[in-house]
């Protein structure tokens, strides 16, 4: 497939942008001197022949690190304040469906709190028959479920309404991550507390400095809301809500309240700052949609994507992620010509509800300029729209207007030189 290059030099070419490996240059990559361990790795000497010396001993009490040759990390969006900021998942080099917990995107409004689980409780009160508190130990005694779900910030891609802005897929789509979550269904708690006639909404509250609150329809809470403490086989990461978070499959990320400490059942929504002043979608008409909670069908090609460079004509396995907040991904199409012709992609695993699925498409690049796109079709029949279609509906007051829920088809232009760039096409 890459007759002129070794595996390691190919990687140097493909992922050159901004990485330590790329800076070292493709020709020297196989023996590149790594001077500083990347985040999450430990630096070890590299033997000339690993079969001729003993490797590292097995260490008791260790946690494990990744290879010193892997460099991808989250990238913080440059908000003025580091406590109310977000960091993006490096989708461009990801494989499979699951986001490593250490690379899951973050969004905080008051920093990451440090919480002792022994002192953390969940209070459920309001329009319930019995107000109750549950310790973490109590919660872990209850029957649990384990499900894979994506979380996507409703602002994922908000920089891209007016013109292509971010250079990489991490920048355009990195507020998306998928984990295997473990916890207790809200419905289980509702049976413990009982619900009063007329109950229709639930306020969820976090234990961070922002004391984040969102109102969630009770119907959603009873249908599939999870109160989770596990992420990818271990406790949730602190930046993801340790020790407890709300998980609302398919809903916008801001509603998945982290560091969850309280659920108040009510007959009406509370109209918190987040659900009025912030996470509402201002349309061209001047009216704003409120409680636009579902994340709709979306997909993105992660390879090749912005800032990558293809070394030359030949075979490439186009790959990317597709997801929908309204159920399962039904199918994914790929276009090589700005959407004039579409071909069915291959799904690499059976789609699960409100979960990403990786797709791929075999591409024999002839060396001519191309525009690569993907579109997701979900099981409700919804076809991922173009940006033009969304603007026709929501108006064009762009980055100050309908900034959320941008699920338009993404375009990557491939030049004859093999450079891949973010374009509107």
């Amino acid at each position, binding site marked *: 497939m890459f007759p002129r290059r070794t595996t390691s030099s190919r990687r140097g070419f493909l992922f050159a942008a901004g990485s330590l490996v790329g800076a070292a240059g493709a020709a020297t990559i196989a023996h590149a001197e790594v001077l500083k361990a990347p985040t999450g790795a430990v630096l070890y000497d590299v033997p000339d022949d690993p079969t001729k010396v003993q490797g590292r001993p097995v260490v008791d009490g260790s946690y494990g690190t990744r290879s010193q040759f892997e460099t991808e990390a989250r990238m913080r969006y440059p908000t003025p304040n580091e406590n109310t900021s977000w960091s993006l998942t490096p989708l461009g080099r990801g494989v499979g469906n699951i986001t490593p917990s250490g690379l899951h995107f973050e969004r905080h409004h008051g920093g990451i709190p440090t919480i002792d689980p022994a002192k953390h409780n969940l209070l459920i009160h309001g329009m319930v028959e019995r107000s109750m508190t549950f310790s973490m130990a109590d919660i872990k005694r209850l029957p649990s479920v384990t499900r894979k779900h994506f979380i996507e910030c409703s602002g994922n891609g908000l920089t891209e309404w007016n013109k292509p802005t971010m250079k990489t897929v991490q920048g355009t789509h990195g507020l998306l991550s998928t984990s295997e979550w473990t916890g207790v269904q809200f419905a289980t708690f509702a049976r413990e507390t009982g619900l009063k006639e007329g109950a229709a909404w639930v306020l969820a509250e976090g234990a961070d400095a922002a004391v984040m609150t969102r109102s969630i329809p009770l119907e959603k809470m009873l249908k599939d809301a999870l109160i989770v403490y596990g992420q990818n086989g271990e406790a949730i990461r602190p930046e993801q809500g340790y020790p407890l978070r709300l998980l609302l499959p398919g809903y916008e990320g801001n509603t998945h309240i982290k560091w969850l400490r309280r659920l108040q059942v009510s007959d009406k929504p509370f109209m918190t700052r987040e659900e009025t*002043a912030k996470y509402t979608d201002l349309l061209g008409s*001047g009216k704003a949609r409120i409680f636009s909670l579902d994340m709709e069908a979306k997909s993105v090609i992660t390879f090749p994507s912005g800032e990558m460079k293809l070394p030359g004509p030949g075979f490439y396995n186009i790959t990317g992620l597709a997801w929908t907040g309204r159920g399962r991904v039904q199918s994914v199409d790929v276009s090589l010509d700005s959407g004039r012709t579409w071909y069915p992609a291959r799904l690499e695993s059976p789609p699960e509800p409100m979960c990403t699925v990786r797709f791929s498409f075999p591409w024999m690049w002839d060396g001519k300029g191309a525009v690569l796109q993907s579109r997701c079709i979900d099981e409700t029949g919804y076809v991922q729209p173009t940006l033009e279609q969304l603007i026709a509906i929501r108006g064009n007051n762009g980055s100050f207007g309908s900034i959320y829920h941008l699920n338009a088809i993404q375009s990557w232009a491939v030049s004859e030189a093999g450079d891949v760039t973010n374009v509107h096409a």
Partner: protein
Amino acid sequence: MSMRNSWFGCVIGVCLFSGSAGAQSMVGHFGVGQTATADEAAKYFSIPPSGDGLPAGSGTAKAGVEVFASTCAACHSDKLQGNPAAGIGGDRLLGGRGSLAGKTPVKTVESYWPYATTLFDYIKRTMPFSAPGSLKDDEVYSLVAYILSEARIIKPSETIDAKSLPKVQMPNKDGFIPDARPELELYR
């Protein structure tokens, strides 16, 4: 409702932990968790547009001037226009009325927020940024009065308290519509 209650009662009183396989499969209550006292719930607040839960106390714009200057102006500026400086990033609070349908909409308390009760809830919950939740209820009422007065939504002389706050009519109160999705245009 009554049927469900009596079934729950049966489960609590008779079936749970009775040891029979049949009862195990019908568990309704697990008996895990503690009954919460009224005091525990009283530690928390969340103020809906009805004003339910607003505490005693009151404030005026005049009193709010001082509180704002000492605890808010560093981030939101003394003119309430926000401070985008590195390390700060305080939101703009005033202006933008009439801009929402234009090319550069400006979303502020004055132009965008539909309920004044939300302002009390948010300030009490999270402000000031360097010492979240440290303001006394009278200080919060005063800040709300000051911001609403500077926005010309209330008169400078008005007192804001649990009774008056829910009655405040925000300029953009009718600016919100239910989510219209799925967008039917996309199914044609």
